[in-house]
Each structure stands twice: as C-alpha cells, then as structure tokens.
C-alpha cells in the first residue's frame, strides 16, 4: 500500500490548519494585549473605587460619618 498520498493529505491539512490557527492566535493575543481600561492620562484615579485617604478617614471618624461612603 502506498502511504505517501495519505501522508501528503494529513500533512497538507495539518499545515493549512496550523497556519490558519497561528495567525488567528496571534491576532487574539494582540487583541487581548491591547484591551486596557480607559483612564485619563496622568489622573492616576482608580477606575471603579474611591481612593482611600488616611486624613479623610480620620476626619470622618472624628465627625462620625461613614468613611466608606462615596463623597
């Protein structure tokens, strides 16, 4: 039995699939790498949470208000 045609078909299909998946994987890697939270340059503010400030917490404690409450 001549195995070369079968081997050729297997290698051909696997090569095409590999090239296709390699390009797709690279595109996915670049896409994932570029997705970042949108933060104003230099603002340094966290995206979702209010920054904890020691002095503000002390003031809140003094006047009895909730230090966790958003200002």
């Amino acid at each position, binding site marked *: 039995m001549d195995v070369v045609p079968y081997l050729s078909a297997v290698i*051909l299909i*696997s*090569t095409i699939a*590999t*090239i296709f998946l390699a*390009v797709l*994987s*690279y595109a*996915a*890697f670049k896409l994932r790498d570029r997705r970042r939270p949108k933060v104003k340059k230099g603002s340094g503010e966290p995206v979702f949470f209010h920054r904890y400030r020691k002095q503000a917490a002390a003031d809140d404690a003094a006047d009895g208000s909730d230090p966790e409450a958003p200002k």
Partner: protein
Amino acid sequence: MPAKLRYAVLAGLLLVGITGLSVGLYELLRDAQLDLPSTFVNISMWVLFTFLVLLILRYIGLLWFSYLNHLERDDAEPTNLPPITILVPAYNEGTVIQGSIRSLLALDYPRYEILVIDDGSKDDTTLKASAYAGDHGRATVRVITKPNGGKARALNTGISQATSEFILCMDGDSALHPQTLRRAIRHFEDPAIGAVAGSVKVVNRTNLLSSLQALEYIEGLNMVRAAQGFFRLVNIIPGPIGIFRKSALDKVGGYDHDTFAEDCDLTLKLLLEGWQIQYEPGSIAYTEAPEKMLDLLKQRYRWTRGILQAISKHKRRLVDPRGGIGVTLTLWYMIFEGIAWPVMNVFGNVMFVFVAARYGTALPLVIWWAQLTVLDLAAALYCVVVEKESLLLVPYAIFYRAFFALTIDVAKLFATFEELFKLRMDWGKLERIGRI
C-alpha cells in the same frame, strides 16, 4: 559500555542516519520530476530546498560541536569553591518566591549569599521572602526592596550590593538543581571565562504545550548553547540561570534597560569586551513554561523583539569584526536563527500549500516536513540521552515540527514586522502558576 563511548556511537549513528535519510528524500524529490510551469514557483522551490540543505548542515554542525563540547567536560570536583552571591529579582512573584528560596537553601555549596531584590511588587513578595531572611548556616538570605524599575535595574541593584566575585543571576520564578554552583564555578578557573550559561528545563510538563516547550528547551536551546560553548561563544545567557564574574559585569556596566532582552544584550556586551562564555549542562534552573497559547505567544513576542533590539544595538559589529570574528559570526548566526529561519519556514509552508492546491502535488511539502522532522527527532534523541532526560520526550518532536514550530514562527514573523515598524510594546509579565 562506558558513557562517552555510548554517546560517540549515538552521535555517529545519528549523523549517518540524518545523511542517509536526507539523500533518500532528495532522491524521492528528483525522481518525482515535478514539472511546475511558473518560474516564480520553480525559483522559490530551488531557494527553499537549498535552504533545507543549509538547515541539515546547521543540525549536523550543532550535533557535532555539542558532542565535542560534551567530550571536553571534566567531572572532577572543583579545587576552589569561592563564595557566590545569588541574585533573585522578584516582581509580584508571591506565589513562587518561597519555593525558589527553598530550592536555593538546598544548594550543595559551602558558602553563598541569597539576595532577593523586590522590584516594587504590589503583592506579598517582600513579606514571603522576608520570612526566610537571616543566617541559614552555609547560606545567608537578604531581602532588598526598591521602587519598580524593571528586571535590569533590579539586577543592577543586586550586583552593586553583592559581596562576592561570582554572581548567579536567576528569575524569581525559577528553582535550581542542588549541584548548580559546584558545576558552574570550575569553569572560572580559566581567567578568560567571564560567564557561564546554565541549562533551563521546564518543570510543569502538564499538557501538550508545556511538554513541547520542555523538548524545545532541551533540543532548541540547550543543544545550541552546548555547541556554542565549544567555541566559548554562547550568545544568550538565559535569564533563569547565568553565572558571572563580577569584574566582567562591572567592566561592561551591568545590565542595560534599553531592550526587552536584557540577558541577550548583556551576553553580547561581554562577548564584545573579549570575555569567553561557556555552557554548563549540570547547572540547571527549573522554570515554569506558559501552559496557554496566548501566554506563550506573549513570551515569544517579547523574546523576538528583544533579541532583534539587542542585535540592532550592536549592528555595527555585523560588518566590523574588531570585537573578534567569532562575535561577528555569532551576530550573523542570530540573524539566521531569529529572522531567516522563521521567514523561510513560513514562506516554505505557504508556498508548498500553494503548490499542492495549484498543481495537485503535496510531495514538496511532505519532503520539507519529513526532512525537518527527521532532524528534530535525531537532535531530540541525542539531547535527551546526553542531558539524561526522559525518552518519552522524543516522540514530541513530531508534534513539535507539525504544529509548534510553525505557530511560533508565524508569531516571530509578525513580531519582526512590528519591530521593524517600531510599534509600541511593554514588558508583558506572565502570570505565574506556582508549580515550583
């Protein structure tokens, strides 16, 4: 049969086997008498199969010189065991840092210092490392913290704080073999040796991707270093394990931080300064390899662009052999490995697929694949035996050639284009799994 004779027989059989199979494959191609009407396709085929001959010579050369280097190995105990400082730069390595330090405390060496440099971590790296700070008999552990500035700056801080003439630089996510220091230090009895590159092995062989990398590290990286070691011209001292003479580091100004492959850049600086660099397979660092495809691509993207940046930084030496003809040839070899081969591999596969689709014959693709697989299998068998690795890794060479190498080469090709167009990039730190 003595080990050295066994290796000689193996190397001889492999060289004869590669030559025989290569001739057979070329006979097959000649007998097929492919009649391709396109001049472009004919020229491309001629170029690709000439390149394949170059690759056969490359594999034979690497096998031969790594074997010669292996013959020169001296397993005698070193006569002098000077103190060594181990630098462990760490940035957010909380999951793995204690495992690394524990492996360092188990090293078989009479006097050494472990210096953990916390590069402004945002996790509990300092806390976890500090738990081990102090005197441990043969070893002392110190922890330094500094604002975040990158691995190169962290290592430079460590070099300036090191108290020994010999320095081992490693990654915070690596673990060392107990004999690492003893095996490496004897090379420094030769005053021309400025550094020793160790062997990196993958510790997490948990899936196909990491097992393929385990093979790649042994066959693709360690075999090349062993062959280069014969000429004392190792071109990349790997980040997870490099042992340096402090005076050599001082002379070249330590690590620069203008490339993303600071280890490659430092190695080239040492070579250009005239220092010789050897490879020691007994100095082993175990490291975590990426277990997911996109993490692997992230790593290879950084390696590719970093190496290109390092070559570009020293490009004047490509045509100016005043740093030594060996260094100039090393730089050309890096271009061959870093650019020419990935380009030709991707071009070859695309061209052969086109020929198969257009002219109905996949024979050139089969011969290209079979030739490279034979070379990979032979190299894998040799490396697995010489490095006393598991024989189970050898069959992975088939998958390595069929899927892995092509996928990585496609990524390298894109990364090369991005580097040519100077697209922005960042360090891209990998998430650690914590298997060490």
